[in-house]
């Protein structure tokens, strides 16, 4: 019996590669036991990963949908599940379900636009998926600017990919910054919001933000002062989630459920929500 579908029952995923990105962030490559991608997704969507007996948690899928072989998750060590994952080895099975949430409107609102991606710390994880999607379908978008900052050089995520691929792409400008001066770093030093203002982008762009709440707040203010309209700015939220499908009530803010109506929000939509995220 039981032919009823049930989203809460996960599939098995296998960790096939673990990349150490920074001292507290690792990127995990996950496929099904028969070596396929667990499911298709759109840029910005999330998946529920779990370790039986430890717990389940929502992570954004960092790999682009254009990657047909596997999914990647960049995970910062900060709680029970993430701590467990950080000591997991290649070959370890976990469970995976998804995809959840509303993706970035890559084929609608973003199409044909100049794109500005702004990320701080592990906030690059959800953006990497959409950045690589835009790079893959390069001709569908205008100029791409990426501003990325973190605490130090060691804390920059996907550093090799940024240097080797993104920086070498035509029409893609990458602006890196770190919070404090550091030996061996000749790039920009300073916080992301300030750097964005210094760079002073034209407002002919669609901006996508992700990072710590405080960075989002100030960057948003900065962009608005540069003349951006809030309808041009997108961000992605994170709240505690359990079900992933708008039923358990945990990620409810205003009339929205972050797991179902988000995590991607346009900033003018956020203004309509109570300040509880």
């Amino acid at each position, binding site marked *: 019996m039981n032919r009823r579908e049930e989203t809460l029952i996960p599939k098995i995923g296998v960790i096939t590669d673990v990349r150490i990105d920074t001292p507290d962030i690792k990127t995990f490559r996950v496929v099904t036991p028969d070596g396929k991608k667990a499911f298709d997704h759109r840029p910005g969507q999330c998946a529920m990963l779990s370790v039986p007996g430890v717990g389940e948690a929502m992570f954004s899928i960092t790999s682009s949908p254009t990657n047909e072989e596997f999914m990647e998750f960049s995970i910062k060590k900060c709680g029970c599940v993430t701590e467990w994952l950080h000591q997991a080895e290649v070959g370890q099975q976990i469970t995976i379900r998804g995809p959840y949430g509303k993706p970035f409107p890559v084929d609608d609102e973003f199409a044909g636009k100049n794109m500005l991606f702004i990320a701080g710390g592990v906030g690059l994880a959800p953006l990497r998926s959409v950045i690589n999607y835009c790079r893959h379908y390069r001709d569908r978008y205008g100029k791409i600017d990426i501003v990325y900052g973190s605490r130090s050089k060691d804390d920059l995520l996907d550093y090799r990919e940024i240097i080797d691929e993104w920086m070498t792409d035509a029409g893609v400008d990458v602006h890196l910054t770190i919070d404090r001066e550091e030996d061996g770093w000749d790039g920009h030093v300073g916080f992301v919001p300030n750097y964005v203002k210094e760079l002073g982008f034209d407002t002919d762009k669609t901006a996508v933000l992700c990072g710590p709440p405080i960075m989002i707040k100030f960057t948003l203010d900065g962009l608005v002062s540069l003349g951006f309209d809030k309808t041009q700015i997108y961000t992605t939220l994170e709240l505690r989630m359990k079900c992933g499908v708008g039923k358990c*009530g945990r990620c409810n803010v*205003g009339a929205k459920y972050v797991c179902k109506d988000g995590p991607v929000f346009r900033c003018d939509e956020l203004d309509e929500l109570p300040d509880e995220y």
Partner: protein
Amino acid sequence: MRKCSLNSLQSVFGKIASSALLYLPVDSADGRAVFSKWDDGTPLSNALNTVRSPKDFFFPQTEDLMRFKTEGKSIEVIDVREETEDFVVFGVRACDVKSFDILDRVFLAEPRDSYYASRRDHGVIVSLACTRPSETCFCSTFGIDAASPAGDVSCWKTESEMFWQANTEKGEALIKKIEELTEECSDEAVKEQQEKTARIMKKLPLAGLNTDAFGGGKTEELFDRPEWTELSEACLGCGTCTFVCPTCQCYDIKDFNTGNGVIRYRCWDSCMYSEFTKMAHGNNRLSQKERFRQRFMHKLVYYPENNDGLFSCVGCGRCLSKCPISMNIAKVMKKLGGE
């Protein structure tokens, strides 16, 4: 409409129970009504309502979702779902019947919750009209008529008879089953009872409570109201209101390591709890005021906004009688609605 005498009610119950599990409100040893399984002769309680709501039948306080077996690096997922046995819940009050509409819109929305759906498919709800509402009742505020409850079958109990009216296909089937024990009748006695109850409803202390100040789209007006501080001041942060509430449906999913496998189970959770929204790196609702506000905003604004204006409260009054500090949705509505 059909009827049977109260003297033959036990044989009607017996007939129903011959093909499905039958639950009904029964007086427990300490004098409170609880839903219990009917066995030969179990008398129906005369109490107005049960302490716990009948949502337990469809959304139990805890249920196993799945099991895991782990060995080395590999995991096996074991589906523990079983199709629910057919069951009948008798004696559900009008308010609680309405609560299933509210829960349905959450659990049966895509993707359907198969655990809940299976119970909904196999459960038949037989409602029972109220004749003696309590001072804590305010179902009429939400457009519910206590004297004509919905459900698969509606029942009215008079001094000597029980009247039965099928409302759905499932209900027709149930009535068919007890056809021999009931007789076709006019609805005069029921009408008379309904009019009498309607008169009582108007006399209830909370009869004037209305929802004018609430509903979808009122977030901005209500969210920052200063009254929240005062209203939530004494809140202990316990989960009594949410757990006795027939419409509260927030849940938690947790893993339990049994020593020989892992059970992933679901249990009721409460937005009143301090750790409800706590994440590894912070909490977006730090004070009890914010948590308290969330509960009432959800019931009175957010839920109606997403569900065609339907409020997520049915006025059953359980939270009014059970809150340790007597703070409840009626007081919140009066305060914010400008008394």
